[in-house]
């Protein structure tokens, strides 16, 4: 097999050194009855050329991303990825190494994580960030668990439009610990009324959760909501699933959040049909010992040279086992590196401009689409790069007919909320050109 360095000659030599005659003897400790009598029923070994041809064929069974106009968001965002990201994450030193248990041989990874932690703190306006979690959805679950540990209360209030899949995951991951997740619906403007949230909070509320911008793309009043949470003695958890918005919207920390968490796929990580993505979490410093996942800290050697190490490991499963803050072990290392590279490359100005341009393009699309007869934007308040468009007829049908024109007309909200048959959730990023937007509006007009 081409991936294995030992050929027949070397194999023989090694067997000889062990005094064995054939490889089967290596498995003497596995009871005979369990050993396979015939080979597995799998396709035959593929040469590299055949492998490539097979998967290229499959990949071409997907929609050609360069021959279509895609207006999909809803938790995964198509953004431009500078070439440096892939170039650098493809260096064997990064991608073929593992968790930096041995710091003297892993300063590259460790320093990158330290930089990532810092960047996330700067973006969220909070004090400490960890080295990544699986994805935004599990980050929300971990955030709820953290609030539960800190507050020793069992209720969590979810305010308004939080990504429905995040909530499902959070439920799966927290319900057996007796945590109850209560949802407070949004008001007519597509955002939650802080008063409604306040009413739902009580003495057994560990946290209030809001998403910024929310699932419908609207900007929530995070400040008022966090204030309400604090009043009830609960933590304010802000979920971000379009991380690009952090270049423009008030930092969660400045809005009063105790925990900011979410998904940073937007930062240099390809859509890749839903994963691998990048969960992140940042908290106020008082909660550092309750953080789940890996943390990197600064250290020194005997000559006083600065280096970086995994630290506060006593929070983690390999030391504290069932009393750990989380069960996470392998995290999203290389995605973390991609995000670090993305943030470093765009930099302070780039992050701001990117956010602004996303909004400009989305506002433009909002304007031209809402001029299409029969269409309107039901929530008129501030939004970022997503918005709801309400059609005069069944949105899923229109969506299907536009697909034939190589346009993916956002997400029919009926996929998540069966009664919302006329709504499309539309996302516009810097990858959608003006020509695409105009064509979308035009074809929408025809389809209605």
């Amino acid at each position: 097999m081409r991936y294995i360095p030992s050929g027949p000659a070397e194999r023989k030599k090694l067997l000889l050194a062990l005094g064995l005659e054939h490889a089967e003897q290596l498995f003497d400790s596995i009871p005979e009855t369990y050993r396979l009598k015939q080979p597995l029923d799998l396709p035959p070994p593929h040469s590299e050329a055949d492998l490539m041809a097979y998967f290229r064929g499959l990949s071409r069974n997907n929609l050609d991303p360069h021959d279509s106009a895609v207006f999909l968001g809803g938790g995964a965002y198509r953004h431009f990825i500078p070439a440096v990201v892939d170039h650098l994450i493809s260096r064997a030193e990064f991608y073929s190494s593992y968790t930096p248990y041995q710091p003297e041989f892993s300063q590259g990874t460790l320093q990158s994580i330290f930089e990532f932690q810092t960047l996330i703190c700067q973006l969220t306006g909070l004090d400490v960030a960890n080295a990544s979690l699986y994805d935004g959805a599990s980050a929300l679950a971990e955030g709820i668990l953290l609030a539960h540990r800190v507050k020793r209360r069992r209720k969590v209030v979810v305010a308004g439009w939080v990504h429905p899949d995040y909530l499902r995951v959070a439920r799966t991951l927290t319900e057996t610990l007796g945590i109850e997740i209560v949802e407070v619906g949004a008001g007519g403007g597509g955002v939650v009324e802080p008063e409604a949230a306040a009413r739902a909070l009580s003495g057994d509320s560990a946290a209030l959760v809001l998403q910024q911008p929310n699932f419908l793309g609207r900007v929530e009043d995070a400040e008022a909501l966090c204030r309400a949470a604090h009043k009830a003695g609960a933590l304010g958890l802000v979920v971000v699933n379009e991380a690009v918005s952090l270049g423009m919207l008030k930092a969660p920390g400045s809005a009063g959040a105790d925990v900011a968490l979410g998904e940073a796929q937007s930062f240099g990580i390809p859509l890749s049909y839903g994963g691998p993505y990048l969960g992140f979490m940042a908290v106020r410093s008082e909660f550092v010992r309750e953080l789940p996942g890996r943390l990197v800290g600064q250290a020194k050697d005997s000559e006083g040279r600065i280096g970086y190490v995994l630290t506060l490991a006593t929070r983690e499963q390999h030391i504290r086992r069932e009393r750990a803050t989380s069960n996470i072990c392998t995290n999203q290392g290389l995605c973390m590196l991609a995000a670090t590279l993305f943030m470093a490359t765009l930099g302070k100005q780039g992050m701001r401009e990117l956010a602004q341009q996303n909004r400009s393009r989305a506002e433009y699309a909002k304007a031209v689409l809402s001029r299409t007869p029969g269409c309107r934007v039901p929530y008129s308040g501030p939004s970022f790069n997503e918005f709801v468009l309400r059609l005069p007829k069944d949105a899923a049908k229109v969506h299907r007919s536009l697909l034939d024109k190589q346009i993916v007309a956002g997400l029919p909200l009926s996929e998540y909320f069966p009664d919302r048959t006329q709504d499309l959730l539309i996302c516009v990023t810097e990858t959608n050109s003006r020509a695409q937007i105009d064509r979308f509006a035009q074809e929408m007009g025809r389809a209605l």
Partner: protein
Amino acid sequence: MSVQKNPPRRREGLLFEKSAPGKRGCEVPAWDGPVADALDARWTRDEIEGFPELSEREVVRHFTRLSRLNYANDEGFYPLGSCTMKYNPKVNEKIARLDGFAEAHPLMPEGAVQGCLQVMADLERYLCEITGMDAFTLQPAAGAQGEFTGIKMVRAYHQAHGNPRQIVLIPDSAHGTNPASAHLCGYRVEEITSDERGCVHLGDLKERMREDVAVLMLTNPNTLGVFEREIGEICRVVHAGGGLVYLDGANLNAFVGVARPGDMGVDVMHTNLHKTFSTPHGGGGPGSGPVGVKEPLSRFLPVPRVVRHESHWKWSSDLPHSIGKVHGFYGNFGMHVRAAAYILANGAEGLREIAETAVLNANYLRKRLEGTYHLPYASASLHEVILSDRNLEKFGVRTLDVAKRLMDYGIHPPTIYFPLIVKGALMIEPTESEGIEDLDAFVDAMLRIAKEAEEDPEMLRKAPHTTPVGRLDEAAAARKPVLRWTPPVRPEVS
């Protein structure tokens, strides 16, 4: 004389220290449409304080330099036990980056992503065949999340039978994620002791196997690299008590293509695609931890499930007893593609050759090192061998010193101090991806270190001597943690 033959190398500063105003490494694309009115200031922020400003050139140079401070599996031996640091085929990286895959949005209509669905359906089928399980979910993002998912299904199963039960049994040699995952599922953990062979103490198991035990989490081969020969009996005992058996499949590489957990009585298991199936470890992830179940548990699998509908693949959430979702979308698809490609590249023969070679390599290392290093358990080894520092104690040299010193020989240290049941463990997993040249180089280094322990233990205790930084004081770092960069405080101008 102040002249040094080896002048000190410059430390690579942090991104933030290299930043200077007015620079950027990437411009946003041109936009020929109207610029949106600014949002009200109550919603917006000022500039991101402290965020770096760098040119593309600087970013590249910074991270190229950082990369060169890392040791790579592609560069040399990396016998990190329990992590299966095998070769990551380059073609898999190319496949995962094909535009059609890399740019597929997870909320695309199914008709526009048939290629992705086919990959996932294929992989589920391959995994079933390889493990002997009946159905797989690809959602879990890593082994630990797989454990959670599996135990959660166990819970749902017991619940459906009227009582979720309360206890999860776990051998004392198990990985830390096992108890942590069990706990997260609301279970209490009880430890099973290991017997003198390093295996599950059958008597202890029998004693603890009461009716409130939900599941036994077994690792096989266990973390000592020893096959639990009595797995048949173990399963019988647990099943007799109404419990289920969970297999931590992290060590599947030891017997892939040779035997199947599904044939041994296992009810539910996870496998780590980033171990046996070669998806890159990425400096700590991303991984993927698919979970396989036997038929009776399949109605509890996470949704959505990929199913065939006429000539097409579709997502179905029509599984009323499902535990729900554990991932925002469908799991780490990028890893699924790579693993599927790996399985296709190998075929049945190739997979078997993997196990054979991995076990051969581990036993070769054992043969050459035992004696010089203490072998705490004499049982037959499969894919990894556990040694300890007992023979070096008399020189005051510990496992940590051996590990650090290996770096001076240009070799990555094994996993150390795990499993916990071995004092000063050195957990060595060569995988099938090492040839004689590198195995021998490792042996030579280990033997020389044992000699150095005798001749110059002090030097060992200060190792490594040739790395970019010396031994770092981790205890001090944890005492006063510095977890982020902060701008230097400028002395006030007088």
